[in-house]
């Protein structure tokens, strides 16, 4: 009886995630700042898990940043989203997988809205047809790319070369996870674990052997705030939000931060650099920063992929301290090369953040 009761209770915190046959939608931010994360996601799904994922060249932004910066209307965003669904439908897919939490929130909001207001869906169908001649089916399943990785976390960990264990001490690495505001704040039942017990990242990190840190500002926003970052005059808001998190997590001595949303790793990475330049303050150990990884980068690293093939050279906070703790071997010169091994030359290395 007790076990059944628990099962019923926890059902509220589960979500259905399709097994296979995914239509993938790239992210505005992730493809610019973490292209290797998207490459790694597709590689793990296609080559390791043998899944069918379609990467359609015709798809575009969902307009999410513009929508949440209030320069396009809900109607415009819904119609662009309807076009994405039309592309999915035309290729014979029913499972939609965005690579962005802002997009995931928007798709969820729109699908919920249409369910409760079918007259709005009808209007959008009409507008899309008028604009493009396209028609669509609503996805049978919507899952963020991290939901898929979470679903197959045991299989991925089973194929992995590394664990989140300090190779010198044998102790679990200490992980801060940041799931991003629009993953479960707006529609908690659409996120794994809901808004109260989100485990899409913590579950992944623990499967890799890490210790997940709880800290006071764990659920606070990274500070993107859309217009609060895009406009230079407003960036005090953005860095203040991130700083509040760094100050709160630092006493727990995290070895790394892992993230869900494409924007959060950009801010948690960049603002550490800025604070080091402005105040001479760093939040990692020995004058280092705290490395920030996306969930795809973390998974690829555990699989034993070359860190410079998954894009870790694009981070402003050096990842080498983390690689050394895990025991990942890397070539420092390869960090600054193209796929053919031709060197680009090195970027200027900031003085305030130590690499090792």
């Amino acid at each position, binding site marked *: 009886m007790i076990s059944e009761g628990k099962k019923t209770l926890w059902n509220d915190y589960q979500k259905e995630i399709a097994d296979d046959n995914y239509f993938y939608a790239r992210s505005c931010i992730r493809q610019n700042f973490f292209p290797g994360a998207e490459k790694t996601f597709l590689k793990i799904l296609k080559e390791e898990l043998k899944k069918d994922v379609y990467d359609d060249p015709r798809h575009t932004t969902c307009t999410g940043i*513009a929508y949440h910066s209030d320069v396009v209307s809900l109607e415009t965003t819904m119609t662009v989203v309807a076009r994405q669904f039309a592309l999915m439908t035309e290729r014979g897919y029913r499972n939609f997988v965005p690579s962005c939490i802002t997009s995931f929130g928007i798709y969820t909001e729109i699908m919920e809205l249409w369910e409760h207001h079918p007259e709005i869906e009808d209007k959008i169908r009409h*507008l899309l047809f008028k604009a493009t001649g396209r028609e669509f089916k609503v996805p049978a399943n919507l899952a963020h790319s991290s939901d898929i990785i979470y679903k197959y976390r045991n299989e991925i960990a089973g194929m992995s070369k590394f664990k989140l264990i300090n190779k010198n001490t044998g102790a679990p690495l200490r992980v801060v996870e940041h799931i991003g505001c629009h993953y479960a704040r707006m529609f908690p039942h659409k996120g794994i674990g809901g808004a109260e017990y989100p485990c899409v990242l913590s579950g992944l990190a623990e499967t890799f052997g890490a210790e997940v840190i709880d800290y006071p500002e764990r659920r606070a926003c990274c500070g993107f705030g859309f217009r609060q970052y895009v406009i230079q005059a407003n960036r005090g808001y953005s860095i203040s939000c991130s700083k509040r998190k760094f100050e709160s997590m630092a006493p727990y001595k995290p070895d790394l931060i892992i993230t869900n949303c494409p924007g959060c790793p950009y801010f948690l990475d960049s603002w550490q650099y800025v604070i080091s330049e402005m105040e001479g303050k760093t939040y990692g150990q020995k004058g280092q920063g705290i490395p920030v990884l996306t969930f795809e980068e973390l998974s690829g690293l555990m699989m034993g992929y070359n860190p410079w093939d998954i894009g870790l050279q694009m981070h402003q906070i050096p990842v080498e301290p983390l690689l050394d703790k895990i025991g990942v071997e890397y070539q420092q010169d390869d960090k600054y090369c193209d796929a053919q091994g031709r060197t680009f030359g090195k970027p200027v290395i900031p003085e305030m953040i130590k690499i090792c």
Partner: protein
Amino acid sequence: MKNYFQRLKSDIRFEEGLRACINCGTCTAICPAASFYDYDPKKIATQVQSANDEVIEALLKSDTIWYCGECMSCKTRCPRGNTPGLIIMALRQLSIETGFFVESEKGRQVLALKRILGGSILNRGYCVHISTMNHALHPEQGPVWGWIRDNAKGLYNRLGGNFEEEGPGALRKIADEDLKELESIFEVTQALSRFESIEKFSAAKAKSMGYNLTEKADDPYFQMVYTANSGKHKKSRL
């Protein structure tokens, strides 16, 4: 036409976002914007709930409605199921429609947002593109970003990109027919006329402030709205 409350009610987000606020202040307690700005979502819910068009007009002309970061933390925690973040989105839409956005420093930023994001979507198919991000306007990106820009093609292509080329992949060139479809959607959903309206209201405001608004990237009014900060937005205890 001072029927602002009725116009707010015609926005589905306003209807979904505000039922009956009990003024408990949970939204303000959880709100990041309220931590740093002179901002109180509870107060805004009370003001719009009053259905007083003069009060709403003052809000539409104020900096206040532009402080929210739309993180939607308020939605999770409101015991009444309200979402002040959605109320804000409806207020911002009405402020843009009425042209009142140009009456506040934070509201005037709408022009820059429209040009940066709207231009990127229609020209590149995405809200952001490395080729159109001006590194000088983003010093927070650090030296690594300058290095990425300088070596974009080789670096992106190592990392699964298909930089500025046809076919799938990160930062691929979006085909002209796909960009035309986006523009057509923007046409039929009146996003293009909204953009024109933002330009028109901003040009008139620029003129009244002694500027002559142009389409140039280094336009002085654009630069002003992008960077101006009176320093009067902070929460008083900070």
